[in-house]
Structures are given as C-alpha cells and as structure tokens.
C-alpha cells in the first residue's frame, strides 16, 4: 500500500516528533548538498577548462561555497529606487521555498524503523506526489517573474519575461513526458513509481537483460524530452537565456545584492539537486540496484545515480553554447510538445499489448508528423507575408 506507514495509527506526539526530525534532516541535507553542488560545479568546470578551480578555503577548496555565503551576509542589501519594496523582498523567498519542498517527495529507498514507528526514507508520500512537483515548478516561475518585475529596471524585467515564457513553455513538455511514466506506474505516489521499476525488463513474454527502469519501459524518448525540459525549467545552460550576461546583464536578479542574490543562487543549485533526484525517481528506478553483500543498499544507488546527473548538468554547462531565444521557443513548442504527446500515445498503445492498436497509433503518429511539417511551412510563410505587409506599410508612411 503506498503512502507513508508512519501515519497508519493516526497522529500522536511521537509521530509528530519523527515528522519534525525528518523535516529537519531533509532541510539540512538539501542545504549541505547545495553547498557541495556549488563547489562541485566550480571544481569540475575548472578542470574542464584547464584551471584548478577553488582550492583555498578548506581541503581541496571544499569550504569555498560556505565562505562565499558567509561573505554575502556582510554585504550591503541595496534597494533600487524604483523597486516595489514588498514584492522585491518577497521574491527571493518565493524562489527558495519551492526549491526546498521538491525534495520532500523524492524516495531515497526503503523504510526505516524509529522507536517502533516504521517510516519511509522520504519526507512525504502523498497520493498527489508528482502533481506536487509540477505545482512547485509552476510556483518557482513566480519568484523569477516577480523579482524581475519588482526591480524597476530594464534588464531584470526582460530577463523575467524571458524566464517565465521559457519556464511555462517547457513545463508543458515536461508534464506530457511525466504522463508517459504515470501511464506505466498507474499511480502518482513517487514511492509507487520508484518501486514499480524493480527487476528486469519484460517485453512480449521475453526477459531483456536490462533493468526495468522507466527509461527503457517508456522507450527512452520521454526521458530525453524530460531531461531537456528540466534543464530549460531550471534555466541551466544551454538554456540560461534568463541570465544571458551579454544581452541583459545578468537577467532577473541583476538588481539583487547580498542575501537576496544568495537566495536566488541557492534556489538555482537546489533545483539542480532536487530535479536530479526527481529524474532518478521517475526514470532510473530511484533506489533500485543490485544488492551488495546481501544487503539492499537503496540509498547508495540513489546517491550514485544522483551524482551521475549532477555531473551531467555540469558537463552540459561546460560544453554547450547558449541557445538563441527563437531556437529555444521553437524547440519547446514545435518539437518537444508534439513529440512528447506522440510518445505518450505510443507508450499507452504498447501497454494495451494489442498489435492492432500499436500499428494504428503508429500510423496516426506518422500522419500527425506530416501534418505538423506542413503546418510549420505554412506558418513560416504566414509570418513572412505578414512581415512583408508591415514593411510595405512602413515604406508608405
């Protein structure tokens, strides 16, 4: 039965205490992992660019991010003259709180018994787990949007409208690719999604020597779409148009200094860690992995997979140049959304197990793709004709 067994016997003082302890542990773990992630990124990027990276504070520079954070406490908190004061101060909080909360639905593996109370290694396991994640990623848009708008300055406003258009565009593709996972798991419980990926892959009564992770069960494409969408959602490179230094001078947080800036920075890196956790849960089996010396070591495998993703995001940042804005929007709307909708139908059709349905849906997808190509060329033509008529009107004036 999904759901946290901690609450089976109702709520009493011991349960409440366990809940508070778990919340504090999650809070500290997330915070420490962010400090680590900042250091890790700077170190890895440094080595990828033939530099050493931070190496002064602490052994191997491991305390660098802590030192930076402490320094920001002692910096002046500026308030721009044109700022909307309340919203300007509220925005960093709106950015950082959702980032903290996402990690609460990520299952780290198995259950644990504290003082005769069995509980999951996961802060909450609500029946609306994935919806909660989607909700938080929508709320994160507000932090960015309000920060840019309330700064009363040109570049932050531009960064903010860019950011919100980008984030909502990729949210659609992200939601559709998660739906493909939900079709397979039949549940929105993150623990059920993770535990549904145990064992080996079965396909048409054959066992394939691959783990039964959703990555393979959904035919890989939704995973790729999800990765791209999440990268854009977090505005990480190559989708970091939100903070394009060359064009908009740092973007939505250009007017923030001191801890206001630090909270945005914190939220950004926290999102990298938590969304990597969500990706591992949704597509890579969460804590699933072989036993070591007869013990099931879910948390170990979870952290290992998490690291693979953290490294991937750093790698992307070091490797890829930034997108242009129209390329970004074209990729999101004209490629990823139709592709993820098509994959959702395909996964659903394969799930029925009837050959007729699979072939029927595939034919439908091909027809849909051709119609999409036609629509794209018609759309380009329409825009061209419009631009020409605007130009003619301009010349006449």
């Amino acid at each position, binding site marked *: 039965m999904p*759901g946290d067994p901690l*609450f089976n016997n109702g709520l009493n003082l011991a349960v409440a205490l366990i*809940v*508070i302890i778990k*919340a504090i542990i999650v*809070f500290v773990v997330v915070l420490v992992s962010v400090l680590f992630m900042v250091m890790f990124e700077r170190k890895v990027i440094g080595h990828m660019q033939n530099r050493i990276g931070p190496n002064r504070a602490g052994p191997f520079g491991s305390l660098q991010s802590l030192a930076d954070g402490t320094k920001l*406490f002692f*910096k002046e*908190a*500026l308030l*721009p*003259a044109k700022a909307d004061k309340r919203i300007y101060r509220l925005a960093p909080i709106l950015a*950082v*709180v959702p980032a*903290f909360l996402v990690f*609460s639905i990520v299952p780290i593996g198995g259950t644990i018994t504290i003082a005769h109370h069995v509980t999951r290694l996961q*802060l*909450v396991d*609500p029946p609306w787990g994935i919806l*909660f994640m989607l909700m938080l990623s929508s709320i994160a848009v507000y932090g960015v949007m309000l920060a840019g708008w309330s700064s009363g300055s*040109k*570049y932050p406003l*531009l960064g903010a*409208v860019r950011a919100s*258009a980008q984030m*909502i565009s990729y949210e*659609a593709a992200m*939601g559709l690719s998660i*739906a493909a996972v*939900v*079709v397979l798991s*039949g*549940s*929105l419980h993150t623990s059920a999604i993770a535990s549904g990926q145990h064992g080996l892959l079965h396909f048409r009564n054959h066992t394939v020597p691959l783990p039964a992770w959703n990555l393979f069960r959904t035919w890989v494409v939704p995973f790729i779409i999800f990765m791209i969408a999440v990268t854009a959602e977090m505005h990480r490179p190559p989708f970091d148009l939100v903070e394009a230094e060359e*064009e908009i*001078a740092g973007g939505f947080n250009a*007017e923030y200094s001191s801890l*206001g800036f630090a*909270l945005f920075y914190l939220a950004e890196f926290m999102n990298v860690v938590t969304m990597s956790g969500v990706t591992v849960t949704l597509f890579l089996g969460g804590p699933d992995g072989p036993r070591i010396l007869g013990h099931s070591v879910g948390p170990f495998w979870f952290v290992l997979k998490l690291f693979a993703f953290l490294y991937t995001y750093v790698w992307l940042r070091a490797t890829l140049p930034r997108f*242009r*804005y129209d390329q970004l*929007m074209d990729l999101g709307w004209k490629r990823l959304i139709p592709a993820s909708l098509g994959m*959702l*139908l395909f996964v659903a059709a394969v799930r*029925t197990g009837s050959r007729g*349905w699979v072939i029927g849906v595939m034919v*439908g997808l091909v027809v849909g793709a051709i119609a*999409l190509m*036609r*629509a794209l060329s018609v*759309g*380009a033509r*329409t*825009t*061209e004709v419009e*631009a*020409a008529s*605007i*130009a003619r009107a301009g*010349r006449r004036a």
Partner: protein
Amino acid sequence: MAQYLPIVVLMVLATGFAFVSLLASRILGPKNPNSAKSAPYECGIVPNRQPAQRFPVRFYLVAMIFVIFDIEIIFIYPWAVMYHQLGTFGLAEMVAFSIAVLVAFLYLISGGALDWGPVKRLSPAEIITRPYTGSATIRRVPRPEALLAGIEPMEGSAPDAPAAPSAPAEPDRVPATTGH
C-alpha cells in the same frame, strides 16, 4: 490530513531560513545607500528612461497558449492514473482527445502564432545591402525603415526598440547621480 504535516513543517523551516538570513544580512551588512547605488543598473550608463512599461505581446501570447496546454495536461493525469482499468477504451478516448488538441495546435502553428525569430526573407531585393561604408570598417546603422522591414529581430531584444526614433522626452529623465 496528517500527510500534509511534513510538508508544512519543511515549508516553515524553509521560509524561516529565508527570512532569518535576509534579516541577518540586513543587521550584519553595512548601510550607506546613495542615489548612484539605488539607480537602476544599466551597465554604468545613467538611465534616461523609465523602466519599460510594455514588453512584446508575444510573451502574453505564449502564456495564453500555455494555459490551454496546461489544462490539457491536467486532463491527461487522471486518465494516466486510471489507464490500467480503462484499457483500450481509454486509449481510444485519448487518441480522440489528442486529435482535437493536435488540430488546434496545427492551427496555431500555421497561423504563425509560435514564430519568434528573425524572419527568413526569400527575396533578396528586400534586403538593404551596403553594410560597410567605403573604406571605413564601421557598420552603417540601418534606417528606421529598414528596421521596420523586419531585417533585424525586434521581438524580445528591447521593449522600447520600435518606439519613435525621436529623442526621449525630457520629463522622463532620472535625476543625475549627484547625491542628496
């Protein structure tokens, strides 16, 4: 309802952390604001206009189209959860729903509602050449007419770019940074 408790606790912790650290930086940090510091940041140039009141309408358009797609996704989730029970009937329903969505989507695309970038012009006569002036290496600035012809991307680059080419009105000027 007890399921909500951990989230509430974590939310309180996170909010408290954000508030306390903002407060701490206000207590610990120095405080000597001046008008140069509080002026809008424009890379060192004294801003001579109010911050933009308007931005390209395409951003609104995208937000409105997104609402449609978000509602569609909200419909898909309950269906996805119940898909085991629904079987082929569920698949047929979703195929019908997807066709309806796809038709609307194709209509949007073919209307050019989702086009952003610089317009690709097929007729070379439209493009004003002479990019370089004789011996100089300075690029000639296109006239406003040329800008209107859609050679340079206008959307998203600057919200006040398509404004009248005349100089900004004097009352908009922010006071120079001469202190109080």
